[in-house]
């Protein structure tokens, strides 16, 4: 018995040689994952950077270095500037809408009521189901002729058939549609994140605040919200990064149109780099995502660190 207790009493000396091997084994354990990531994320990333400063196209696969010429040409293109603006509008519009809906949804689901499990299961659907498939359903709902949205509005007498909007054919409405579909896809995630945060707040803190006279809004916005901010920040990292770089919703719903009104960076990179085969310009367009990604990730990481201390 004594020998079993002993290592706990003075672990440093007994585990010395094990700890040394732990280093080796630890590196071996990490190696496959790190190699995979280096070869298929790190290397392609460097290639993407090189493409953006070369004259590479699929018709002329030369590695000729052209400096920043690609970037200059892109920035001078008004379509690109529109794309950049669209990307910001798309990202922040849908995240804002998603967060507001998420906060309200979480408040509702906090209260126990019969059928809450089923309601939660239904509410999580937009985030769980492959977004490409859900987007196709939305495309059908926004159909120019058979739109169920229009049918409902006509039936309710809000508009007549002659005034029925062509959702995906009007530049402003099309932008609204992509934002709504993306917010629709993300708000269940926001609900889940808010719920996870709120339930992790110790009940005695809330009770103490209530005893001290804090009302519903004060408890929510001055006690709970600051406590759950780190977890919400992680949710936002996911949301912003995946929205800013998304292409599937725009590709399927509007195909960037009408007249580039909903074109976003990911979509434009795809159009130029893959569809037109102009790899170097496509890569340069995609690289415009990078500063935003860096900024978001660093800001959020800092924020998380500060909160932990």
């Amino acid at each position, binding site marked *: 018995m004594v020998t079993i207790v002993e290592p706990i009493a003075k672990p440093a000396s007994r585990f010395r040689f094990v700890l040394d091997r732990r280093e080796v084994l630890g590196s071996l354990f990490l190696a496959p994952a790190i190699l995979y990531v280096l070869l*298929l994320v790190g290397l392609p990333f460097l290639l993407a950077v090189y493409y953006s400063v070369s004259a590479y196209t699929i018709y002329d696969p030369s590695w000729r270095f052209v400096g920043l010429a690609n970037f200059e040409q892109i920035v001078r293109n008004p379509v690109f500037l529109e794309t950049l603006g669209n990307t910001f509008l798309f990202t922040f519009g849908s995240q804002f809408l998603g967060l507001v809906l998420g906060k309200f*949804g979480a408040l509702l689901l906090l209260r126990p009521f019969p059928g809450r499990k089923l309601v939660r299961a239904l*509410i999580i659907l937009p985030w769980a189901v492959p977004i490409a498939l859900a987007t196709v359903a939305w495309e059908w709902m926004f159909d120019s002729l058979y739109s169920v949205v229009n049918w409902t509005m006509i039936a309710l007498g809000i508009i007549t058939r002659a005034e029925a909007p062509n959702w995906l054919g009007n530049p402003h409405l099309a932008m609204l549609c992509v934002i709504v579909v993306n917010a629709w896809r993300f708000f269940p995630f926001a609900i889940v994140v808010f719920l996870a945060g709120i339930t992790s707040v110790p009940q005695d803190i809330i009770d103490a605040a209530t005893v001290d006279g804090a009302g519903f809004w004060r408890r929510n916005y001055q006690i709970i919200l600051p406590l759950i901010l780190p977890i919400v920040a992680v949710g936002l990292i996911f949301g912003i990064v995946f929205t800013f770089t998304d292409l599937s919703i725009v590709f399927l719903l509007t195909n960037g149109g009408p007249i580039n009104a909903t074109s976003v960076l990911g979509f434009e990179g795809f159009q130029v780099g893959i569809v037109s085969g102009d790899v170097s310009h496509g890569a340069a367009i995609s690289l415009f995502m990078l500063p935003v990604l860096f900024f978001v990730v660093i800001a959020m*990481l800092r924020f998380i660190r500060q909160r932990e201390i």
Partner: protein
Amino acid sequence: MRRVIANTFREVWFFGAVGFFVVLTAFPFYWMLITSLKSNSDLYNVTNIPFWFNDPPTLEHFRYLFEQTLFVHWLWNSLIIGVCVVAITVVAAVPAGYSLARMTGRKGEALGIGIFLTYLVPPTLLFLPLSRIVADLGLQNSMWSLVLVYPTFTIPFCSWLLMGFFKAMPPEIEEAAIVDGCSLFGAFVKMAIPLSLPAILTVVIFTFTLTLQEFVYALTFISSSAQKPITLGVATDLVRGDIFFWGEIMAGALLASIPVAIAYNLFLDRFISGITGGAVK
């Protein structure tokens, strides 16, 4: 009396709000279901009430989907891709997650965050160089290119998830095994893996759903219909010229959505505690 009215009002408001959220999230799926069961003459008539059947429901669209399209083929492709990616991911991510969790000090934390960040590198940044790499390897237009590429996001994601789970497991368990004569590797295989089977199962399920959800790489690498995974096939291949086969598309979308939706609902709590594991202690 006033109290009763106020309470009733609050209840009505509450369940009304819940109803609004349920309709908002579930309606597109109801729409898939009802569209897939309607006959074409019912679907393409603007005077019909769209929310219910005006003609008797029909399984015609499902029959067409299974017999006249490559739908079954796409299902198989997705299954093969999913199983292969799951195997690669588990082999790489389980030891990596364990190793990250047991590393002490700044190095482990930095590596963990580094791996997590690679999950955030978007496909739309990497698809151009990757499509060249895929072509160089002779995998162009083949579903095996997806088996190669999907682990680039499933491995970081799952390593991060598993790191959280392993961190929650007390190291004393392995130390006890080591004291009893196990090697460090033996302790990992005999103690850590069996105890983390629920976590590994979560990772398996989530890797599989991630492969089903992915769209960008599939769209970029694969153009021939027979090689498409189900999500890409349903979303892009059931359109002939300008004509959308809405009944078939909705039937396919519904069938492909159901397993993912069920898997998510069963494993959601584990998943959330995994991704937020780095943020709250």
